[in-house]
């Protein structure tokens, strides 16, 4: 099975006279990538930390990684892509960062992202948009925009991001990478600047499924600082294997929602799967499909609005805790979500109905997954152009399939996107879903399909 992390470890032993030469290549890539605006805060001690970590002696020791700027890092500026947190230096490490340091991984830089995790385009960071390295007229997707560009351009071997609707898996799909959202609760979110606590999940960005399993195994550790964290004793890398028999469910007629550019790719992907496995078609009612987006907004905005109150009355970097000054610095997206969230928390009917819809959608989703897995197209189109986004040129019905990625967040279940078609800026993939805590099954299915499409 393909693993760049394992290849990195081999290269250190055999191809390079000094391991330092190898890490210098990643540092060179980091410098080259400044033009894409993917990094916000560079770790100036990379070489020093690399030398220190080499002796730890596990798969992640010395492996370069990037961290979305929503994770607190002691002594390193953490802004979450907002001017409101400009200059904020946390006094403690997030669980994820601490765990990776224990494993010997080396931080290259903190990644740019849409402001406070709001926005799905990569255009919404207060520190400027992230540029698509394949085509600057196209978007990268978001909110984990900087993280995907860093993995794509070999600034690091993996990146840690977040996934509250599709923020890891969607940009990975646009850029031809593997994006893994584990089950809700498997990775502690201690020290993560919250966006929507009932949906927030740590996301893993890699080039291969095996690499995602290696990173996940290092992070599936019980942490009492996060009340939702749970240890299910899942060892994604230790127990990784390809499967001979998979029960695959596919949504009937979903291709009707895809733009022609990806429709043929999706259908040929399914035909290829059919050559090896039995495929079962399941129904998703149109009215449910159309409600997914509003259900997400109805849950997310009140939670986001509530979370943002955390910043009031405390000093964070340049901010003195004054609420008016703080909120004036916010961009349009967070402002929109705060007002909508506050409105919905006052207009109880809509919020209540969103929670009811979440129950109903989860029931339908689990039924569609069944005893096996549910496979859906990762997107209805290739990464759109900035113009298409700004002028809203894409028919809203074509966005409905993209909303399907959000089902795993509403349900708390694991989900992974793997690339099946790569051609410069034109990338497409399949998104695989299993039931909650069936992460091992998900990884094994993803590995099996990755090898099928290799």
């Amino acid at each position, binding site marked *: 099975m393909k693993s760049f992390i394992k290849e990195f470890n081999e290269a250190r032993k055999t191809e390079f006279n000094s391991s330092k030469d190898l890490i210098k290549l990643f540092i060179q890539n980091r410098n080259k990538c400044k033009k894409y605006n993917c990094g916000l805060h560079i770790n100036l001690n990379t070489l020093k930390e690399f030398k220190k970590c080499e002796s730890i002696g596990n798969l992640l020791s010395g492996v370069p990684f990037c961290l979305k700027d929503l994770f607190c890092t002691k002594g390193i500026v953490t802004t979450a892509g907002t001017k409101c947190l400009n200059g904020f230096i946390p006094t403690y490490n997030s669980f994820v960062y601490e765990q990776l340091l224990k494993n010997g991984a080396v931080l290259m830089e903190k990644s740019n992202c849409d402001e406070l995790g709001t926005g799905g385009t990569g255009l919404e960071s207060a520190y400027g948009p992230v540029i698509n390295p394949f085509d600057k007229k196209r978007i990268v997707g978001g909110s984990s925009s900087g993280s995907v560009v860093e993995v794509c351009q070999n600034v690091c071997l993996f990146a840690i991001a977040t996934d509250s609707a599709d923020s890891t898996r969607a940009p990975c799909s646009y850029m031809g990478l593997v994006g893994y959202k584990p089950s809700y609760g498997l990775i502690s979110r201690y020290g993560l600047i919250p966006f929507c606590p009932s949906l927030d999940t740590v996301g893993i960005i890699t080039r291969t499924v095996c690499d995602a399993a290696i990173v996940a195994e290092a992070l599936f550790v019980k942490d009492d600082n996060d*009340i939702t964290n749970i240890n299910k004793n899942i060892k994604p890398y230790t127990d990784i294997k390809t499967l001979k028999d998979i029960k695959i469910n596919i949504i009937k007629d979903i291709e009707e929602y895809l733009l022609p550019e990806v429709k043929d790719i999706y259908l040929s992907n399914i035909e290829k799967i059919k050559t090896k496995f039995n495929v079962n078609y399941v129904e998703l009612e149109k009215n449910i499909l159309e409600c997914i987006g509003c259900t997400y907004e109805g849950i997310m905005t009140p939670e986001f609005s509530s979370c943002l109150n955390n910043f009031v009355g405390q000093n964070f970097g340049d901010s003195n805790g004054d609420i008016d000054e703080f*909120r004036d610095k916010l961009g349009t997206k967070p*402002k929109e979500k705060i007002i909508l969230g*506050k409105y919905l928390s006052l207009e109880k009917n809509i919020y209540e109905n*969103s929670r009811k819809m979440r*129950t109903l959608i989860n029931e339908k989703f689990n039924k569609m997954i069944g005893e096996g897995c549910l496979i859906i197209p990762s997107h209805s189109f290739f990464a759109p152009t900035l113009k298409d986004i700004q002028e809203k040129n894409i028919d809203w019905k074509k966005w409905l399939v993209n909303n399907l990625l959000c089902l795993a967040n509403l349900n708390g279940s694991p989900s992974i996107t793997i690339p099946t078609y790569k051609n410069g800026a034109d990338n497409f993939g399949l998104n695989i879903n299993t039931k909650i805590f069936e992460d091992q099954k998900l990884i094994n299915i993803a590995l099996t399909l990755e090898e099928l499409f290799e």
Partner: protein
Amino acid sequence: MPSMINNDKDTLIEVAKLVHIKVNDELLEIIKTKIYYFNIFKQVNLSNIKPYEYYPIVLKSDVLFNDTVEQKNNNEIKSNKEKKKGDFFVL
């Protein structure tokens, strides 16, 4: 079903004041449109559906770990109190 009675400009300006955000007409229009979209729930019968409960997974894990939600909450409050200034991002 959601009521649209209060979805007018003045109500939204009042809500914006509550959250200390200055709004312009363009932002108000975006929010008004988003609120209007929630009418889509009318196409589904939700009368016998229970609202989704936050933290259902914790309840399950508590059974597994032989711990109670109250204990977990108390522990979290205690540990939060012990944290230094700036530790505001604890979930």
